[in-house]
Structures are given as structure tokens and as C-alpha cells.
């Protein structure tokens, strides 16, 4: 068994184009939700989202780069930052998450079929639509040819990818694994959540008594996980470590969590057991916290039962829900919380739900002694995943 160290990370999210900008937004409690401008939302109830600015993404230079979807550009941007922080090492394998891939290209393809015009870019749309394409683009950009597993476990995907990579390194299957996740905004997914009445036309207010639903976001984040053996041999900077991962499936409903909170509780319990920790040793809970009635209710029950008194926030309040990318993005936020000793705020928070036994860190970031963070992600199909990060 090897310790699993984080020796590199990269992120692009609505909070900023790199780790430094994301950290600044976390300290400031920035509200990075804005009116959607990448497709028409005039017929949707929800009309806002957390969006990555196109100007933040590296300007494509070659013909190949100009053809890439935003999802590929976001992934490349995140990996480029990771490479800067990790001494340019080539990973042995990749474990990457997405829930919708480059769906917007599939949408363009279908629209061109329905309207019967503008088929000129059809082949390119198809090539870029497939969910594995951004991962292939990353490999080509950095001249890697290594195996890649792409997990699509809905909104739990990102945490699943980091967690699986953690287990691979800990069990000494690999020494260096790049893991992470991405998801761009797409009209179909945006409309899907709107049709389920899960999206809100108001501010996203996770864990608030008057919460009314989620707002979508987008982004990409990656972490380089490295065995202690490899990191010591390379004399690299260690940013933190991963010590536990747990999953559960609550087998209740395709889109709704079991109201008892058993799914999230089991995932967190399993992560704690995997790490050999007690719940009291967790300093901060980076909650899934989508701000839907059902998610926050069940997660709230689970945290109350398992970690009464814990400091909790949902960073989705600042950037929205990046779906398959969320778990990886929030793993980086959790890492930043440990590195810089802060609890990111749960903005737009007004009143807690009566009966919950944890403390929502509302509206302002708090300096705090943070040694361990548990990060939760839950998804359609009743999938739940929790990850525990620790100061190295």
C-alpha cells in the first residue's frame, strides 16, 4: 500500500482560469453565475449558469486546435496548469469523468438535420461529440499515448474518477495517474434539468430553508496522483494527499435520492472507513449541495447523523453544478481549502433548515485550521461518492 500524494492540479471553472483565480474567488465568495449566452434559454425557467469565459481558454493556434470543442479546450487548459505544477511528468494512465461529453456538437448536428441546411460541419460535429474525444485531444496535445478510462456516472463521475485513481495508486497498480473531470454547458442537459423542475429561476441557495433548485455550471479540473515512492524519488512539491474514497448506490429512484439519506451516509461512512478515520476528524465538508429540495434534504440528514457540528458549504452556490466535472472541481477546491486554510463560503445563504445539526458556512469564507476535508458528489441513478483529502 502506498500513500497517495497530490503532486499537481489544474482547474478552469466559472471562478477563474487557474488555481490562483479560483482561490481568490473562493476567498471572496464571488457569485460567478451569469445569464446564459451560449444558447437560447428564452423558453426555460432558469436562464442563468456558471460559465467559463472563452477568453480564458488558450487561443487555438493550429488548424486542429481550432476544430476542438470547448470541452477539449477546457480539459487542455486544466492539464496545462497541472503540468506547470507537477514537473512535466507523463502519467501512466488517465481516469477522467464526464456526464455529457461535448453534447453541444451533437446538438448542432441534430439541428442541422431538422432544419435541413448547413451540413458542412457535420463530420466535425460528430467527431467532437463523442465523450472520449476531449480525453483523446488532451493525449494528442501533450503527446501522450496511455490508457484512459472515462467514467460517466452522472454527477458522481468526477469523484468516482479521482477515487478510482486513488485506489489504483494506493494498491500499487500505478505510480502516477492523472484523474479529473469535465463538462461544458449544453442546451440539452440545461433543458433536461429545467424539464425536471430541478433548475431554479432564482439564486442558487444550497442548504437554505427557501432553496428552490440548482443552477448549472461548467468547467474542468485534474489532479495528478502519485505514489509516495515516486514523489520522493522525483523530489516534487506535494500539495496534499487523498486518504479515503467511498461509494454507494441507493437504488431508490432514477433521479431522486432515498429520502432517508442512507445513500450519502453510506458513501461518507465508507470513505471514512477506507481512510481509517472517525467522522470527528473531518474539519470541513465540501457538500454536493445542489440546492434542490431533495438533494439537500437527504445530504443534510446524512451529515447531521454522521457529522453533527461539522462545518459545511456547497461551492456550487458560487459557480453552479458542473455535473460530471463537479467532483473533480470540488476536489481541487477541497485541496485549496487545505493548502490555504480556508472554508469556502456557501453564498446566497439566509436561513438553515430546522433540525439540521451542522453549521453552514454562509456567505463569507472563513479562515480555519483545515487538515481533512470530505467532498461529496451524488448523481442520477442513486450514485453517491465521497472522497477524503488530507494535508500531506
Amino acid at each position, binding site marked *: 500500500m502506498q500513500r497517495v500524494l497530490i503532486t499537481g492540479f489544474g482547474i478552469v471553472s466559472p471562478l477563474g482560469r487557474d488555481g490562483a483565480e479560483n482561490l481568490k474567488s473562493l476567498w471572496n465568495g464571488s457569485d460567478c453565475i451569469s445569464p446564459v449566452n451560449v444558447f*437560447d*434559454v428564452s*423558453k*426555460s425557467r432558469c436562464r442563468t449558469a456558471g460559465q467559463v469565459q472563452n477568453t480564458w481558454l488558450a487561443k487555438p493556434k493550429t488548424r486542429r486546435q481550432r476544430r476542438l470543442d470547448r470541452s477539449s479546450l477546457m480539459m487542455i487548459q486544466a492539464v496545462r496548469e497541472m503540468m506547470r505544477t507537477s514537473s512535466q511528468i507523463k502519467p501512466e*494512465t488517465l481516469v477522467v469523468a*464526464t*456526464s455529457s*461529453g461535448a453534447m453541444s456538437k*451533437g*446538438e448542432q*448536428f*441534430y*439541428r442541422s*438535420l*431538422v432544419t*435541413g441546411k448547413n451540413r458542412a460541419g*457535420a*463530420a466535425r460535429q*460528430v*467527431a467532437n461529440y*463523442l*465523450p*472520449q474525444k476531449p480525453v*483523446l485531444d488532451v493525449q494528442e496535445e501533450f503527446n501522450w*499515448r*496511455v*490508457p*484512459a*478510462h*472515462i*467514467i*460517466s*456516472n*452522472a454527477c458522481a463521475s468526477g469523484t468516482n474518477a479521482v477515487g*478510482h485513481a486513488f*485506489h*489504483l495508486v494506493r*494498491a500499487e*497498480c500505478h505510480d502516477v495517474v492523472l484523474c479529473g473531470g469535465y463538462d461544458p454547458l449544453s*442546451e*440539452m442537459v*440545461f*433543458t*433536461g*434539468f429545467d*424539464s*425536471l*423542475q430541478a433548475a431554479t429561476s432564482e439564486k442558487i441557495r444550497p442548504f437554505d430553508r427557501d432553496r428552490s433548485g440548482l443552477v448549472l455550471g461548467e468547467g474542468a479540473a485534474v489532479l495528478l496522483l502519485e505514489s509516495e515512492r515516486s514523489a520522493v524519488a522525483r523530489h516534487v512539491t506535494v500539495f496534499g494527499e487523498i486518504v479515503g474514497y467511498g*461509494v454507494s*448506490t*441507493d*437504488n*431508490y429512484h*432514477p433521479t431522486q435520492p432515498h429520502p432517508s439519506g442512507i445513500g450519502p451516509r*453510506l458513501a461518507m461512512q465508507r470513505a471514512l472507513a477506507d481512510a481509517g478515520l472517525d467522522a470527528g476528524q473531518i474539519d470541513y465538508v465540501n457538500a454536493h449541495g445542489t440546492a434542490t429540495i431533495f438533494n439537500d434534504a437527504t445530504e443534510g440528514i446524512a451529515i447531521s447523523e454522521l457529522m453533527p457540528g461539522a462545518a459545511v458549504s456547497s461551492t456550487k452556490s458560487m459557480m453552479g453544478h458542473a455535473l460530471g466535472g463537479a467532483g473533480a472541481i470540488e476536489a481541487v477546491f477541497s485541496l485549496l481549502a487545505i493548502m490555504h486554510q480556508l472554508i469556502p463560503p456557501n453564498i446566497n445563504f439566509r436561513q438553515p433548515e430546522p433540525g439540521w445539526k451542522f453549521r453552514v458556512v454562509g456567505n463569507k469564507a472563513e479562515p480555519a485550521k483545515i487538515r481533512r476535508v470530505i467532498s461529496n458528489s451524488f*448523481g*442520477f*441513478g*442513486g*450514485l453517491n461518492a465521497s472522497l477524503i483529502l488530507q494535508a500531506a
Partner: protein
Amino acid sequence: MSFFVRGIGAVTPLAANVEQTWAELLAGAEATRQAFANGFGGRIYHCARVPQKFTAGVARESRLRRSGTISLLGVTAGLAALENAGISRDQARGGAIVFAISCGGVEYTRRFYHEVVTEGANNASPLLFPETVYNAPASHLASLLKIDNRDYTLVGDSSVGISAVHFATQLLATDPELEFCIVVGVEETDWVLADAFATWRMVTNQSSFEIFGSMRGTILAETAAALVLGRSGRIQVARVSGGIPFFRQRDASSALRDVVTQLRRDKPPAAILCSANGTFADRAEEIVFRETFGSVSVYGHKPAIGDSLGASGVLNIVLATLTLEQQILPPTLHSGGRLESVTREKTKIDGTEVLVTSVGFNHQANAALLAINS
């Protein structure tokens, strides 16, 4: 650490179960092709569908009453593999699930997005959206089996089935308490998918296609195949790769060569089950098989069943277990003249190892080596 195939299952356009599918393949049967009914622009493509009666058993489950074809297929094959492994539903809780999917629930995705495009976002049905999610089939199977732990869906090109088996071996390797893993490859099809692949000349508009010949494209098929991977059994997954990507079609043979070199043992396999589908993949496999394995018999199931994309890799591993157990290969239908070692009739083999290969559309090569305990 060794991993073994404990049970297999499949539902294909040829038959409702793996035994009958195998019998049909040995008899040289070809799945019925039908033209898609819901196309645009007068472009016609054919596909091989699984008759609804083959999935009628699981369609009665309340959890699946609103599910799409892909969920019904995946659950049917997964339950069949579990039964074949001698594991009851009640005993399944200790297992994990890994699904391999390439394009996912395209029927529901198309219907949902069609409503968005034609009627507006405010008229899109909330009933369709949950089934457009890639992991919907896996979550249904987990729910029916009450598996409350590991439940993963992997996406990728048609090599993802072999990648899923590799992933399952990782789960077993990293968790000594995990008893077994159900690996399911599944795909449904739709005119939009065929039209999309046709833009790259990967799908033909004919009702049959040739492999190792003219390379005019493939025909898509619905299929689900499943296996139960555990720590004991008669057929061993001796080696399996996580896959190697390639960035241009002309580099596919190089990627496949690297993969089979990684897996190669002292003696050549007794047979190869290939992924040839009437596209550039044929050329890559032809080059590697000829230079690396000489006269080793090669079988391709796709002209008989069709190309089931994400399901095809798992189906090939399922067929490889039958090949090893029965020491026979079916005839490859519609094989051109570019590779002499292709089976053109039922062919007896004599050996303990079979290689399964896959060259995906977009763009990964992968392979697995299966061995029978003598």
C-alpha cells in the same frame, strides 16, 4: 492475481440468449437487417435490431417500465450472465457493476432533443431526460440486484468493452473483499447514429457489408453482452490492456501492434476474435495479424450480427469463452480476400488461448487474452 470468467450472457439480433446466438453463428446465420424508419433527407441506412420479445421478461419489472431499449438490453444480458455464473439475485449484492457504452440512449436522447428543437424547451418531456443519461442502464441493474456499492459506467469507442473488463480487473485487484464484477456492454441504435457515422464513411447504406475486403462501412446493431468476472473459474482473463489511443486512422495498426505486443506470450494464440467491421479497422487488424500471428485463425462476428459499438468488445470476449470451451470458431460471413486466415467455414481449433482485439472508431486500440485451464 488471476481473474476468471464465471458466467456469460447476451441478447443479440440473432437470439435471446448466448447459447442460441452461438448456435446461430456456428450455423452461419446472419441477423435480419431492416431500414431505419425515421431518417432525414432521404438517406437510408440499415440496422439489426433485437426483437422486443427477447427483452419482454425484464420489461415487466416496474423499475424498467419507462426505460429505453438500451436499459432493457443491458439488464437482460446482465441477469443472464449472473444466472450463468450460478449467482442468485439475492447473492448479487456483494458484486460490482461495470457498464461499457459508446453512444448510450440515443433513442430517448433524440426524442428529447427533438422536442426541444421543434417545440421549444418548455415542452420537453421530463420523462425522457433521465433515460438519456449514460449510466441509466447500470443504475437499473444495480437497483434490481440491490447492489449498493460499486456501479460504474464507462464510455468510449467500440474498444470500451475490453476497457471495461480491464477496469473490472482493477476493481477486483484493489478491493480483496469484492467477490465479483458484472461487466455489461450494451448499445442501441438509431438513424441519427448511422447518419453521423456515415459522415465519416464508417456506415454503409447497403444491407450487408464485407470485412477484410472493400471497406465500405459497417451496419449498426443493437446488442448486449455480459460476463461475470471473479476470482475463480475455468476461463481466465490472462491479460487485458487498458488500451492505447491513436490520433489518425493510419496510426491504428501501430497502436494495435503495441497492444498485442504488451499481451503476447511465448506461443501464439489458437485463434483471434477480431473487431473488423468494414472500415479502416480492418486494415489495421489485417496488418497486425499478418505480421504478428501469421496463419492463426481469425473470426469476426460483425458481418453476422452487425456492429454493436460499445457492446461489441464484451460480446467478443463472451464468444471467446465459448471458442475456448468448445474449441471451434464459427464461419466469418462476407469476408473479402485481404486476410487469408479468416475462417470461411466452421473451424476447429486446438489450443488454450484466444486473443480478442478491438480497433475503435474514435480512436483506441485494445485487446485481451483469454485462456482455458487445461
